[in-house]
């Protein structure tokens, strides 16, 4: 056996280094299909959209093909638009509430799945992941049946409990939209955090138990510091999903009564396809991009300090 290995080793060292290098290069080429796809269908359209935002391209007449560079004109118009600022604050509100609720729910769910306190973990995990497996286009329709002001299930439940019924999609449009978004959204944080908590070695907790540490101590001194990277990553991913959220709001309220749920993505869509100002729509898209970019950088920076 030993001689065999030795022989092989000798063969290996004597074999041409060229082959070895070649294999290294092949592994470098492994990067290329993914990068090619990503650059073609994501990076190039992004750059193109940035260029469009400086032109007067429009969806009517000749301007779709013969557009010219007009500098920062689109942005000037946007910043003097009241609805733009309104939709800006609406988006901020939506993202904050969504992020908080999704993250909290996901964290709690992750604790249920991983903690030793609760029985039937496999069943709980199975029950809690179901919303994530539902495709996004079905969810708003399910919820419309829930949220209807006269016959909706939610108001029936409220009336049974003796509470006043709400007109969910009109007066409480923002709350309903956030609720629908969190319904399927919390699972992402749950999956990431549960796998992170599971990867903490049991020995740490056992040592704590020997010294008689409380549950709170175990949670704050062991669990939290060890899952801080997954925490940051789940926050980034949730924010990424929320900032360009389109489907739910589009189907549920389409901007809502008096622009109260007009998210930036919806504003961009309306600018481009309802007012036919493609350049302005692309400009709003670019603003969303810049916000995402800055927040991502900030989050990475903050987590480095931690």
């Amino acid at each position, binding site marked *: 056996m030993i001689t065999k290995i030795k022989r092989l080793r000798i063969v290996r060292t004597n074999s041409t280094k060229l082959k070895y290098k070649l*294999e290294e290069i092949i592994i470098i080429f492994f990067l290329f299909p993914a990068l090619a796809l990503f650059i073609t269908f994501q990076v190039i*359209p992004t750059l193109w959209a940035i260029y469009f935002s400086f032109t007067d391209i429009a969806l009517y007449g000749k301007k779709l093909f013969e557009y010219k560079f007009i500098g920062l004109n689109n942005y000037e118009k946007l910043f003097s638009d009241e609805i733009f600022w309104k939709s800006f604050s609406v988006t901020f509100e939506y993202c904050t509430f969504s992020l908080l609720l999704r993250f909290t729910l996901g964290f709690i769910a992750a604790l249920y799945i991983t903690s030793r306190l*609760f029985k039937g973990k496999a069943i709980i995990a199975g029950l*809690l992941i179901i919303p994530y497996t539902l495709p996004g286009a079905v969810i708003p329709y399910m919820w419309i049946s829930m949220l209807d002001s006269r016959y909706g299930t939610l108001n029936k439940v409220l009336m049974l409990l003796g509470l006043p019924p709400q007109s969910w999609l009109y007066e409480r449009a923002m709350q309903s939209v956030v609720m629908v978004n969190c319904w399927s959204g919390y699972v992402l944080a749950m999956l990431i955090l549960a*796998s992170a908590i599971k990867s903490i070695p049991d020995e740490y907790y056992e040592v704590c138990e020997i010294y008689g540490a409380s549950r709170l101590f175990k949670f704050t001194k062991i669990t939290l510091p060890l899952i801080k990277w997954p925490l940051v990553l789940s926050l980034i991913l949730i924010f990424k999903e929320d900032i360009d959220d389109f489907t739910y709001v589009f189907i549920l309220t389409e901007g809502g009564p008096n622009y109260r749920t007009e998210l930036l993505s919806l504003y961009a*869509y309306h600018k481009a396809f309802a007012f036919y100002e493609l350049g302005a729509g*692309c400009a709003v898209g670019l603003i969303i991009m810049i916000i995402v970019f800055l927040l991502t950088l900030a989050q990475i920076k903050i987590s480095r300090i931690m």
Partner: protein
Amino acid sequence: MNTRRLIRSLSEPSIEVIGYVVLFFMIAYIYAPMIWLFLTAFSPKGGPFLEIPKSFTLENFAIVFGLKKIRAGAAALSLYMHRWIVNSLIIAITTMVVTVVTASMAGYALSRLRFRGKSIFMVGLLVLGMMPTIAKLLPLYKLCIMFGFINNLVGAGIVVASGIIPVQIWIMKGFFDHIPRELEEQAWIFGCSKLEALFRVVLPCAGPGLSVVAFLSFLAGWGNFIIPLILIRTEPLYPISLGIAASFIHHPGEIGLAVPYGPLCALSLIYVIPSMTLYFIARKYLMQIKLAKMEV
């Protein structure tokens, strides 16, 4: 001392009780909207609101598969429902295959190669991948005309795959990072070339990672709404997501009353089933996602 013990014995189970109560509310929040979907799919007279049917039938499913005609007088219902299912499958499988192949290759390369600026490259990939889809819809549309991806299901799958690749590369790299390098080195010692070692040793070990990526990408392709919305223009080629959205006609926030809710809920149920079965295959591995460490 005695009182302290009493308090402790009271407070320990109470955490459990509170936990179960919170869990009950969470489960109620999750399952309440789904009750309507299930009941309406099996009831002969489905309406937009929750009501418990007196009898259950499978008629709605027969209508979806084109085995049975709709009753006269019902609202217009598409004849292509069974084709929508096939279309969705084509998009989802294309997305899955493309993502698994490309993301696992790239993840392996990023896990094993060492080059300058790798961490910046990884973060850059993530940041670029976060650029919102809504911002690049129009250029994407123009690009897809050039590639001939309009009314092309495989093309739509490829475009969806390109959007989810960065995160999947991160997940895949995490899995490859956790496969010990020694395993590979041993294979080299025994005379495997690098590529042989990859296919015979590393890939079998990365099975959980591959299934997680396959699961997530299948869901992304199966459920995507925006990309088919701009790329697929004819009704026979709609995926289910688009079909459902086109069939539930209503003003925002209002429920359309002239909609055949029974067949549509049956279709929605059919829409839900493949992803759920895939989840039951992959859920063992889903909890194992070990994300690559950010070495910024």
